[in-house]
């Protein structure tokens, strides 16, 4: 697709009604027109890419700096790599990422166990705080669960 060159300044009235006060972005944005000089800014040296970075396909190269926390790995990593073949506009970018996040939770547990650490999920959920400040919730949950279990149990027993 070749871009047609239009001599826009020759269009009758071009720019006549431009009003610099019509600037709804003020004062959040200090409009300087820099956007029209967009690719010419002075860039700092690039951070070396030392880990796998999944890059949005809506940009030509990685940003100058980036985080290096938890590079993609395992099954969730494969899904994340797939997600990044689609733009941020697509559901097929975001949904696979959410799916990968859920799978990643299981990978996390496996990883913990492999390192000889059985995760204490109660502790990780801050159970102690619920016990201290909302014991009622725990008591009612325990009550509801026992009622459900007992009912199921007696129903099953009757059937026999």
């Amino acid at each position, binding site marked *: 697709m070749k871009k047609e060159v239009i001599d826009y300044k020759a269009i009758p009235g071009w720019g006549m009604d431009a009003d610099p006060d019509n600037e709804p972005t003020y004062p*959040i944005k200090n409009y300087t027109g820099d956007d029209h000089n967009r690719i010419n800014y002075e860039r700092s040296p690039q951070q070396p890419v030392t880990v796998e970075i999944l890059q*949005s396909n809506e940009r030509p190269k*990685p*940003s100058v*700096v980036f*985080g*290096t926390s*938890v590079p993609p790995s395992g099954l969730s990593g494969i899904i994340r790599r797939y997600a990044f073949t689609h733009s941020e506009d697509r559901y097929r970018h*975001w949904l696979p990422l959410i799916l990968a996040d859920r799978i990643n939770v299981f990978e996390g547990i496996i990883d913990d166990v492999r390192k000889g650490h059985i995760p204490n999920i109660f502790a990780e*959920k801050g159970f102690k705080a619920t016990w201290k400040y909302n014991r009622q919730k725990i008591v009612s949950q325990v009550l509801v669960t026992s009622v459900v279990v007992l009912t199921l149990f007696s129903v099953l027993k009757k059937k026999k």
Partner: protein
Amino acid sequence: MNYRGPYRVRTEQRPMPEILHPEDAIVRVTRTCICGSDLHLYHGMVPDTRVGSTFGHEFTGIVEEIGPMVQNLKVGDHVLVPFNIACGKCNFCKQGLYGNCHESNPMATAVGGIFGYSHTAGGYDGGQAEYVRVPYADVGPTVIPPDMDPDDAVLLTDVVPTGYQAAEMGGIKEGDTVVIFGAGPIGIMAARCAWFFGPSRVIVIDHVDYRLEFAKNYAKCEVYNFKSLEDPVLFLKKTTDWYGADVCIDCVGCEAEGNGLQTFTGRKALLQAGAGTALQWAINSVKKGGIVSIVGVYGPPFNLIPIGNVVNKGITIRANQASVKRLLPKLIDHVQSGRLNPKGLITHRIPLEEISEAYNIFSSKLDNCIKTVLIPSAKA
């Protein structure tokens, strides 16, 4: 801190962060907060939140090490670090949009880099830790003035600028009626900051009574519990002469309650990027030609909001991530002159080691929690 999955976090020893770019600094954290935004991560609502990452975008700390190109900071400085990572050179930064930097996040173009805020926001480890890597150390970090309480300083990294910008984007005029949805730290700060612009009424809506009570005392505003109003929009119309508020501000974001359909599609089925209830109410209760300001955070794909009414009513919507660096000089002055008291929001001080309990307390709104500060044991 270490994220293990929705509602599961713990502390764990990690390798020391390293200088990875000549403009980096390594900061030893002195204070760090848990933010309403962290709850979106904690609840598993933000795509590409990887197990093993460290959250935390509100922190202060002592500079421990600097990269060879850093000029404005020196080892030993006590700094507050804005939550947005900004280069200071791209066209967006140059125009004051430090929350929209184009050189801090390769993983997405819509959002700039944010400390400890998933890979969608750049994959940085955050400040809920003992040490943290701070890129562009000459741009964001600001030395804490010697007479400033570090508790005030840590709230200047996000809560104060966000609350202030929420009000600022509302374009509030003298005599206006301003309605703020959400009485979390951000909504309360927005209500307090709204007064700087001269309204005659500031109304805060939430459904948690202790938070409304806190907001009323802290921000001297009117408060209403939407659970006790049958129809919050109708109520707001009535109380504004059947006209609508001049300005409505969304300080809730994607985990809103109050509308079954929004809650189901947005928070349970994930058919939209969170529940748009507060935004829907904001649009429908602002006057024609009014302004809706949004700082509540929503997920990336899309939300169900009454956009037709935006057109028919001629509403101006203004929204952004707060540009912390742009606002700091003005806000430091408001704090130093005693007009603003950020640390008054802090209700809980918890050692970093008790991170799991700290998250649970803030997330489940236990013990009348408004704002939690975490203190690493190696504190200054």
